[in-house]
């Protein structure tokens, strides 16, 4: 169950193009699992013009220590809200709702796992890798980005994983190309049982496809624009096939952000497929 807490910025540090923000969040670390996210308010409602919270994967948690519970977030400066966050300073207050969403499902048995992260999509994978290793799983990591300074988590991954493969689209680090290029080989070599992925939609679609082709499960953490983050507004939906085979527009903030890759209708994101439950007739739909 998520809580709303007032945190205090403990530190900010640069990591490539990103800012890693550590903030106190009493009570949150204890109940956070890999894949959960946090929603941060951008200033006070009295003075801020940015009224919606911003969602960030929880990258790490420290439940003890002098600060009595902190969480780490990895922030890409990509608009006014994230920019504001990167400008915080030690001691600033932040309003946090966390942990949110449905986290990654962990295997009961010590299976072989491939973790694929695109850009800051690597943020939740470090904690995931640690949990998987604790369960005795093999962990292979593939991290990709368009260019070197958009890679994240390489050192952490090297610390935890059996193998770490880097790809950049411009070849500025690791193998030139996309994460899916080396993934097939790695899956074969490591006898992968399940693929975990977090990153841009296009990457997730490709990873889910590779996994499906190989006949194995994938778990993908998606990123849809969210207004509320807690399941009340219906802005963050995407078409997902249910156990009953029926496609529904499903909220990624509460039924996700982690979905089974074979259940998401990747090619149809941004549309309402005609066979979706309640899809519009020709009459058009009210706002």
């Amino acid at each position: 169950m998520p809580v709303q807490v007032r945190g205090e910025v403990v530190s900010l540090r640069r990591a490539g193009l990103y800012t890693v923000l550590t903030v106190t969040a009493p009570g949150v670390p204890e109940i956070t699992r890999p894949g959960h996210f946090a929603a941060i308010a951008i200033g006070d409602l009295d003075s801020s013009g940015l009224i919606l919270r911003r969602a960030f994967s929880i990258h790490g948690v420290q439940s003890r220590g002098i600060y009595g519970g902190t969480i780490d977030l990895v922030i890409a400066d990509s608009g006014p809200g994230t920019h504001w966050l990167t400008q915080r300073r030690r001691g600033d207050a932040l309003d946090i709702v966390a942990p949110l969403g449905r986290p990654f499902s962990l295997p009961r048995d010590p299976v072989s796992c491939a973790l694929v992260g695109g850009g800051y999509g690597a943020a939740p994978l470090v904690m995931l890798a640690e949990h998987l290793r604790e369960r005795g799983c093999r962990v292979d990591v593939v991290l990709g980005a368009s260019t070197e300074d958009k890679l994240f988590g390489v050192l952490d991954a090297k610390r935890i994983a059996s193998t770490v493969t880097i790809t950049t689209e411009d070849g500025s680090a690791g193998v030139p190309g996309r994460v899916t290029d080396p993934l097939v080989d790695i899956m074969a070599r490591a006898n992968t049982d399940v693929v975990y992925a977090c990153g841009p939609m296009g990457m997730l679609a490709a990873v889910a496809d590779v996994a499906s082709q190989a006949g194995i499960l994938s778990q993908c953490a998606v990123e849809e624009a969210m207004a509320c983050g807690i399941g009340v507004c219906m802005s963050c939906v995407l078409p997902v096939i249910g156990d009953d085979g029926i496609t529904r527009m499903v909220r990624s903030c509460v039924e996700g952000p982690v979905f089974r890759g074979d259940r998401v209708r990747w090619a149809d994101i941004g549309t309402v497929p005609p066979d979706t439950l309640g899809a519009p007739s020709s009459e058009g739909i009210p706002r």
Partner: protein
Amino acid sequence: MTTQLAGIDLPGPVLTASGCAAAGKELDQFFDITAIGAVVTKSIMMEPRSGRATPRMAETPSGMLNSIGLQGPGIEAFLEHDLAWLRERGARVIVSIAGGTTQEFEAIAHVLRQHDGFDAIEVNISCPNVSDRGQVFACRADSAAGVIASVRRASDPAIPIFAKLSPDVTDIATIAQACERAGADGLSLINTTLGMVIDVTTMRPALAGVTGGLSGPAIRPIAVRCLWQVREVLPDIPIIGMGGIRNGSDAFEFILAGASAVSVGTTVFHDPSAPIRIQNELASLAALRGFTRLRDAVSYAHRDPDQARVEDADGDLELPEWV
């Protein structure tokens, strides 16, 4: 402890706004939803609806656009799951209904009549009329009144019905009067105002639905003005005020302008426990201004310029009965 609204007693004057609280379950994680006035549920239609394609929302200065497209499970599933849960939980409930035709509104009202576990109906007439080129019902006095008359006829006379109006009209007072004449027991003011954002990267409308409804603090002055205008012509009808309420002071503005209760919408996305916080802030502020009963503050800003001010409360502040 209670607030009177069109003959019903509610635990307080602050409600959730339709579409901003789903059916209450998620918010109950953050505060006790039985402590606020009522949960106004997401507008429900006859059949399940997928809603629109994404993007469905865009942030704007002190506001947001949405074009959800009334996604919902349909009235049957709503009654079975959502309303049943709310009833079990003991929350007060105002069911918001929507339709593409007057007949659909009437049909939903018929279904509701077979059920209990709710306190009032809010009729969302700010949705497109399929038989009028998608013009929203609330944009014309005749179509608005038509829906209200049908719903009133089809519903249990003991259940008050609220007509929820759109601000996107030349003269909202006339629409309000038409709804009142058609049998509305109360009014809900306001729904979102139509807006649009162009994505300067794709150079296309940011929302898949092209236009969307603007909500949040940005529209508060428009909402207060609509409420004021309607109150001037209908001095007695109960009104639920809404539009950009962030705190007790904003809520008090609506009360002074003529609302008997207020709904909190977009602010819930910023602060999931906003409804109870605002209810408490409103109680303190009204007490500070010397009102022992909130109802004495309703429409207070309309008083004659030379009418006596209520005495400011003295040192020992008594919180009003409805806290």
